[in-house]
């Protein structure tokens, strides 16, 4: 069901990964994504995968929980895999009429798929182990230097906080509306693609109206509590770097070196 999507969801815990400063995790995630694009052979992916697996193990987030929420995403990856597989020219491995699979196509498709899977699981690890509020606090602090050149860092962070905060609310709302329409005999599962698209209208319109209502209430509540933007705001819980963050920083540097070194390993295939 729609509730099962765990993208952007927080998994409560107190592991060393959970306790890291949000800024550390944001930087580590960004670095990891960049490193996935530095990698140019399967050795690199093997190392990157092992590192990710280690982080998952330390964080104690159940693997089942991570994957349950990514089924839809994996479908999209499977789709790009197939597209890549058939669309690249090169040494032909298999051919049937106009369809052909080439060595280069296979390699490209595999590369892209592995890269995307690692990328998505890697960034899910950040949201799974960081409270949304910490995440946006961290982001705001990281963006602070850019406010010198006019970047509205507080507003960006606030928009993210609100978006993240309301994902579960809107999911709950969607769930309720779907059930209410099913109770009136609505059928979302059968019919061709046009009929199915049309059957979404009874869900989307009430959802739209609810979102506006929620947004209006929120704006009013913020104004009533004298919200007036970022200038001069202080916070109740300041975030601090700790010893774990230093350790994480060292590991990140080592890992970056390993990944760069992996480019010079001989390819397996």
């Amino acid at each position, binding site marked *: 069901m729609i509730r099962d999507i765990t993208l952007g969801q927080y998994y409560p815990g107190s592991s060393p990964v959970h306790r890291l400063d949000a800024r550390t995790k944001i930087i580590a995630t960004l670095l990891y994504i960049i490193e996935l694009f530095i990698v140019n052979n399967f050795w690199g992916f093997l190392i990157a995968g092992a590192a990710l697996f280690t982080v998952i193990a330390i964080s104690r987030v159940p693997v089942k929980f991570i994957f349950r929420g990514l089924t839809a995403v994996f479908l999209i990856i499977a789709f790009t895999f197939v597209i890549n597989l058939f669309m690249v020219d090169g040494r032909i491995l298999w051919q049937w009429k106009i369809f052909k699979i080439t060595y280069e196509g296979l390699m490209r498709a595999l590369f892209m798929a592995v890269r995307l899977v690692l990328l998505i699981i890697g960034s899910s690890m950040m949201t799974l182990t960081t409270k949304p509020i910490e995440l946006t606090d961290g982001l705001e602090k990281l963006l602070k230097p850019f406010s010198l050149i006019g970047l509205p860092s507080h507003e960006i962070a606030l928009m993210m906080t609100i978006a993240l905060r309301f994902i579960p609310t809107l999911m709950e709302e969607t769930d309720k509306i779907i059930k209410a329409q099913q109770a009136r*005999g609505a059928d979302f599962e059968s019919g061709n693609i046009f009929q199915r698209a049309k059957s979404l209208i009874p869900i989307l319109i*009430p959802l739209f109206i*609810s979102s506006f209502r929620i947004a209006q209430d929120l704006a009013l509540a913020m104004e009533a509590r004298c919200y007036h933007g970022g200038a001069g705001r202080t916070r109740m819980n300041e975030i601090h770097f700790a010893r774990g963050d230093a350790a994480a920083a060292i590991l990140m540097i080592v890992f970056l070196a390993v990944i760069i070194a992996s480019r010079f390993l001989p390819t397996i295939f």
Partner: protein
Amino acid sequence: MSIEVKDLRYVYNPGMPGETVALDGVSFEVRDGEILGVIGHTGSGKSTLLQHLNGLLKPASGDVYVDGQCITDGKAKLVEIRRKVGLVFQYPEYQLFEETVAKDVAFGPKNLGLSEEEIADRVKNAIELVGLDFEAIKDSSPFELSGGQKRRVAIAGVIAMHPSVLILDEPTAGLDPSAHADVLSMIRRIHESMGIIIIFVSHNMADIADMSDWVIVMDHGRIVLRGKPREVFSHGEMLSGMGLAVTPARAIMNRISAEIPDLKSDALTIDEAAAELREYINRTKNI
């Protein structure tokens, strides 16, 4: 027509963080033409229970029988069950989506695959049954109506499917006193003219006492009390222990009998309380 629930259990998010046992062995039965009132603290499992009665939720264990037919064995046709058991959610006005009131009410009947004439007929009857002026309202947008009207349109949308059981989850929540009274008299009217089973949840004890043939009290996913309203509301202390209360009239009479021990009272409604007081005054006037 009857509805029978046998040892129902339901768990939200099994094996995940936030695992909640929402129903923990619930059994009851409602027979033809009866009104069942359901009370319980917020989070006691009332809404979860109602969603099992038309197959929206599948129980972890236990069974639901509608008219003797099991709807939880996976063989029953869902459309058939939803035609028989109409469920009106809490704040049903949030499910309205069509351009006009008539079209919105027609959504359910259309999903049943009825003929155009049949649909038009049912829409008109349903809107009139919920106490709205069909001609005046049929072409207006449901979003222009008042809160109470919206809610009645949403209820008409379920009535138009001609269910044999009508389930309402907190049908009067958030309404002003006059809309509240309208919705209550509407439920009575539906019950009288269609003669169907009605199951409703309410936090208004006076409404429960007034309307129900039977009352069940839920707490932590179980039924802790059941019986005729008078029986259930005689357990005042137990109810307040669960964050519930007796009816206002009952509470006043309890207080008065504490002051005047020879005024014996078992009144639930204001009318009954008034009658008892009148009787007491007449009896003691001449002493």
